[in-house]
């Protein structure tokens, strides 16, 4: 606005106005970003710094006092101790992400290209179940999948499964729970990416004698890659650290690292070890993201996140 004023009245601008205008101009971006900066500082960077420093300390579980002992060795030690749980978490999160991508791509595609005027309605339908707390929804899955629940009883009566077959308490139940819970986090970025594709580009592809399949492979998918990447991040990362699904749906051999971290804090009360594990989890996630970004080379991810 200030620029307009200057342009309209060359030389006729009051001095005070001019000064105020340039101050405001200089400060405006800082003032506007202030809430975000404060938010980031207080709720993200400070806790992160506390967690990082705690991971190098040694704590007395009785008095709660922690001393800085610079125990760098703790990080590789924790990886060693809980290697299997880390690997299990990676496998489950990867499986759930793949399931989600496969399931939600057609949904997102259909809404984006064939949703017509009811697009918002369909998107809403996708989100409605998620107005209920995810713990409750996971508990309902436990009820549905339980051995004497109606679903398993029906399958058993139909002789589709043997009497001893069970889903609850297996890794498959955990993957199913994760996929279900994080589905909208995959579907929505995919939808945004597909929705943004310029239809004229598709028309051009057809004009150049591309078959529908070729157009899909060589136009739609490449243009949707930033969305796929965003979907991957938003699904994989929370699923990797998730512990609710494993605790409710999992059994004895499917412990994920999130459960271990939770137990370290709440059962053992060892905050230092819990922080070390969290740091390792964070580093693995960041490394994964970095690698993934390098491979896909997506520069415009932020547009879709």
């Amino acid at each position: 606005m200030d620029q307009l004023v200057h342009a309209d009245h060359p030389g006729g601008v009051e001095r005070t106005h001019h000064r105020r205008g340039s101050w405001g101009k200089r400060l405006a971006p800082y003032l506007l970003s202030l809430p975000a900066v404060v938010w980031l500082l207080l709720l993200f960077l400070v806790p992160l710094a506390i967690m990082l420093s705690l991971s190098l300390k040694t704590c007395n579980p009785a008095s709660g006092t922690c001393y800085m002992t610079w125990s760098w060795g703790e990080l590789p030690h924790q990886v060693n101790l809980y290697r299997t749980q880390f690997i299990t978490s990676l496998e489950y999160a990867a499986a759930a992400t793949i399931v989600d991508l496969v399931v939600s791509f057609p949904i997102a595609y259909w809404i984006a290209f064939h949703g017509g005027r009811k697009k918002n309605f369909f998107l809403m339908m996708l989100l409605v179940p998620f107005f209920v707390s995810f713990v409750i929804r996971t508990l309902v899955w436990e009820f549905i999948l339980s051995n004497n629940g109606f679903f398993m009883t029906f399958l058993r009566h139909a002789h589709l499964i043997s009497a001893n077959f069970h889903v609850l308490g297996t890794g498959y139940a955990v993957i199913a729970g994760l996929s279900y819970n994080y589905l909208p986090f995959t579907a929505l970025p995919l939808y945004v990416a597909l929705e943004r594709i310029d239809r004229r580009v598709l028309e051009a592809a057809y004009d150049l004698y591309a078959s529908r399949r070729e157009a899909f492979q060589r136009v739609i998918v490449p243009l949707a890659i930033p969305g796929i990447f965003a979907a991957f991040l938003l699904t994989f990362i929370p699923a990797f650290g998730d512990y609710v699904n494993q605790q409710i749906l999992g059994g004895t051999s499917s412990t994920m690292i999130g459960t271990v971290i939770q137990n370290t804090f709440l059962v053992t009360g060892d905050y230092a070890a819990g922080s070390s594990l969290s740091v390792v989890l964070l580093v693995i996630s960041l490394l994964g993201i970095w690698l993934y970004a390098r491979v896909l080379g997506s520069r415009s991810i932020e547009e879709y996140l």
Partner: protein
Amino acid sequence: MSDNNNTGAPYEGIDPALWRGLTQRRLSRRQALGVAGGGIAASLFLASGAASGASLPNAKVGNATWWKKEKLHHTVNFANWPLYIDTLNGKYPSLEHFTQTTKIKVNYFQVIDDNTSFYAKIRPSLAAGQYTGYDIVVMTNNNPPLGYLMELGWLVPLDHSMMPNFKKYAGPLVKNPPWDRGNKYTMAWQSGWTSVAYNSKQVKDPGDSVHILFDKKYAGRVGMLSDPFELGSVGLLALGIEPASSTEKDWSKAATLLQKQKSDGIVAAYYDQSYIQHLKNGDVWVSQAYSGDIYQANLSAKYKDLVLMIPKEGLMMWTDNMCIPLYAQNPKDAMTLMDYYYSPVTQSVVEYYNDYICPVPDAKQQLLHPTSWNKAALAKLKPEIGLPTSATADSPLVFPSGREAKLTKTYYQFKNQEEINTWTNLFMPIIQGA
């Protein structure tokens, strides 16, 4: 269990300051693993040296002269576990009667879900020498925090001149218990058993032994508890070892047994209190279980099939203890309230609602033949409970008979942090291992 006499109070035999120095130096899991360098050891020494130089923060608190200076403030802040007191239409009849007769207002907070996490909430105040906001907290004896509170001098020693009801009516299971000899710091709120429960529809020949939890016949249908102290204790019972007098060698034997139980595919999962849901819906046929849960499940005709076993190896008894955290603002009001709950009249009302193990055996007579204000209170509660008061009075789960009392075992009392670490390092990997 008599061996337990010495182990119950490590704080008495040894100078507590020295004790803390020792545990602080040894507690470090990192050091034991050899990842620490020389500088680390030095800094820990400095820290523990500073700590052991000072006496316990409650050294001058809780003696006769201290108590004499304290006055009633006619208010008390009471932190307890949820659903653990007589409740009617959102009000607590026994607390209301207390306020009417003593003019002490009670702020009742149902904020304790878990020992470790609640302890973590009050710990910063205690460490800073400040009031936690609670004059009474209720902590369980089978988890480390109660021991921590005693060890660090963060509890007010009780005024024994203000405990007439306790002296007269407290039952043998909670009087002078191994975890707090002479009731220096604590009075029991309620106790319960951790035992084995099964669904009699699916389990036809349960027998009377905890070995049912290790029976291959029930592979994949056995629930175990995810609390390492419960899990380890039942392992010890299965080996025929008294948990209270067990040694570290016994613990590793129990861990081996429990690891095998898991790798043989017998365990369905390690549950928190959610095991009861799995027992009810039939996913799990046999499980480690808390007596109160089974009693409450049985109240509904639908779950009459759930049976609590009294195994010949023993029943683990845990006790939730009322205690006064240091820097409490209303300790005298707290004492008055704690002793009030040792009146058989009061306890009859609480127990009619709770159905845990009653710390006051004489409450049984009060349930059958109420003589005081409890007559009206019990009558008002009855539609809510739906059972006659005799159901509670006659239940061996509330008033243990001779056999149950004899089979009751207490948990191992940890002498220091190193032992706690040894225990958790043995049993946690079973619970959360791959």
